């Protein structure tokens, strides 16, 4: 292939002098033209808006005056902002940990049963991931309904007290995390299952001969072998969970008293509903440090994985 490139360049070099047609025929030009729609989409609709957000965050509410860090300073003084920071971190970290643990456990159970039945179980377990989150969150909203909660009906029959699912700040926080875990753990399960399948059987046999029990096999064989996937999946999920919008928006809309707002929903409330786009942009920009850090680690892992392959 490299030879082909070289010869192409030579051919192009020969006919370069002022001949537009030969430039067009050059392979790298064709390649660039083929990638052009992608470049255009990325530049116009992702890169430019992302930088524009930074500019927007330095303007005043009517977007007529430059206020520098004014919006950020204003945010730092508001207690709601710190509550949102706390809740976003709590929400993302807790949800990712639970998704990872549940995904890990379920993947092992699926891996444990005969191959023939795995497809069926996997198929059922992935359904929460397939349903659009906005739609399944509606079902949870109904399950958490203050007067007709189907959970509370079960609790009442078991003699347990009923729970104010979305009315109480702590239960509401629990609720949004629960729904997020419900939506996301099938994804972890699928990724970990794929990783488990790539662990060679010989390693388990060797461990068994050495007298390892099932816990030791998981801890000393599976976990190290799956480490890369576990890291990448976790980091990806951290980004997405941190930037989550649908679930919080529909389930609690940030309530009760802003206790469950995360960056995305609060930015929406301030920016679109409150009509203060610069302030909303400033809030959403606070997602950037976490996203950037996670992205760097993912990139490193993906590269490493590419080199191993």
């Amino acid at each position, binding site marked *: 292939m490299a030879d082909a490139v070289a010869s192409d360049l030579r051919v192009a070099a020969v006919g370069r002098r002022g001949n537009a047609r030969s430039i067009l025929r050059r392979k790298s030009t064709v390649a660039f033209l083929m990638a052009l729609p992608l470049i255009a989409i990325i530049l116009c609709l992702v890169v430019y808006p992302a930088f524009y957000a930074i500019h927007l965050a330095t303007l005043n509410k009517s977007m007529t005056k430059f206020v520098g860090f004014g919006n950020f300073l204003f945010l730092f003084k508001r207690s709601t902002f710190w509550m949102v920071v706390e809740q976003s971190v709590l929400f993302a970290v807790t949800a990712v940990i639970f998704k990872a643990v549940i995904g890990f456990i379920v993947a092992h159970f699926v891996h444990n049963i005969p191959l023939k039945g795995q497809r069926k179980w996997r198929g059922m377990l992935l359904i929460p991931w397939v349903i659009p989150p906005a739609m399944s969150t*509606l079902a949870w909203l*109904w399950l958490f309904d203050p007067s007709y909660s189907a959970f509370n009906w079960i609790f009442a029959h078991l003699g347990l007290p009923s729970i104010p699912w979305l009315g109480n700040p702590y239960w509401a926080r629990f609720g949004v995390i629960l729904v997020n875990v419900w939506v996301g753990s099938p994804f972890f399960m699928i990724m970990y299952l794929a990783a488990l399948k790539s662990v060679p059987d010989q390693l388990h046999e060797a461990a068994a001969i050495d007298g390892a029990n099932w816990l030791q096999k998981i801890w000393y064989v599976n976990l190290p072998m799956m480490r890369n996937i576990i890291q990448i999946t976790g980091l990806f999920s951290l980004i997405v969970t941190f930037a989550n919008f649908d679930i919080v928006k529909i389930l609690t809309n940030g309530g009760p008293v802003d206790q469950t707002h995360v960056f995305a929903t609060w930015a929406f409330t301030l920016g679109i509903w409150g009509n203060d786009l610069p302030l909303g942009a400033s809030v959403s920009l606070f997602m950037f440090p976490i996203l950037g850090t996670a992205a760097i680690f993912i990139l490193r892992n993906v590269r490493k994985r590419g080199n191993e392959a």
Partner: protein
Amino acid sequence: MSTATAVATGGAPGGAPGAVRYGSISRERKRALYWSYFFLSLFVVFFLMPPIYMLITSLKSSAEIGAVTNPWWVYHPTLENYVNLLSSKSFLTFFKNSAVVSVLVVSLSIIVSILAAFSLARMKFWGSATLATGVFLTYLIPDTLLFIPLFKIFAWIHDKTGIELINHWWVLIFLYPTLTVPFCTWIMIGYFSSIPKELDEAALIDGASYFQILTRVFIPVALPGIIAATIFAFTVSWANFLYPLAFTTSEDQLVLPVGIVTTLIKGDVYNWGQIMTGALLGAAPPLIIYAFLMDYYIAGLTAGATKG
């Protein structure tokens, strides 16, 4: 595996006491299997409860939902919610908007990403390696970071050119590719790079042009990847909630998820029967595709790395 374990324990020199205490290997394995099934069933109950509850509620009349009966059982099943929704003009509009947007976004994403992936994976040009990494990074930028600047940019375009972009369903056709194209390209680069070079070199020797190599060799060989990318793009554009919520408001411009959430919930009055029916119908297209193409779906999920 099982034989190895059997040899490992059973082969212990006449150590009968040990063997007796632990029970036979096959019985132990069987017990582990039963526990696996038991816990898997518990997880399936947890994972399937909300969709099943959707179905249960969608089959009830409002009177039955309001009555103090077992919420987990349908005493008088009725299809009136389905009939009402499917004959409501606004619901059909949401469905149509969603379908048109999704189909167009999927076609656009697939064309753009196949061309780009072919050029990035095989043809190379100055900066193509950086661009491949850049594609991956853009995929990590969430819509929640972009919707506010985009909103302002659209307003600016309106001021300058008079083209109104906000509150038109078709604007989503330009917005959704930001979510679908980077990942589709990323999947396709992976699939295209795995095609042996001998294949396209043979085609080159036979006198094929690059376009012919793409259409005659790469697309057929990487078809599973293309299907996986198509499913991904469809799922994303069908399910997105933030962009339509931020950019469309009139009832005839809404897509399905936003339409159900904003029009069926009126103030504090929840018509749960209809909401659940709408949610179920909104979830149906991805579920149907998933039911038939589960393997491609999973291939797309596990190809490289995905969001979750």
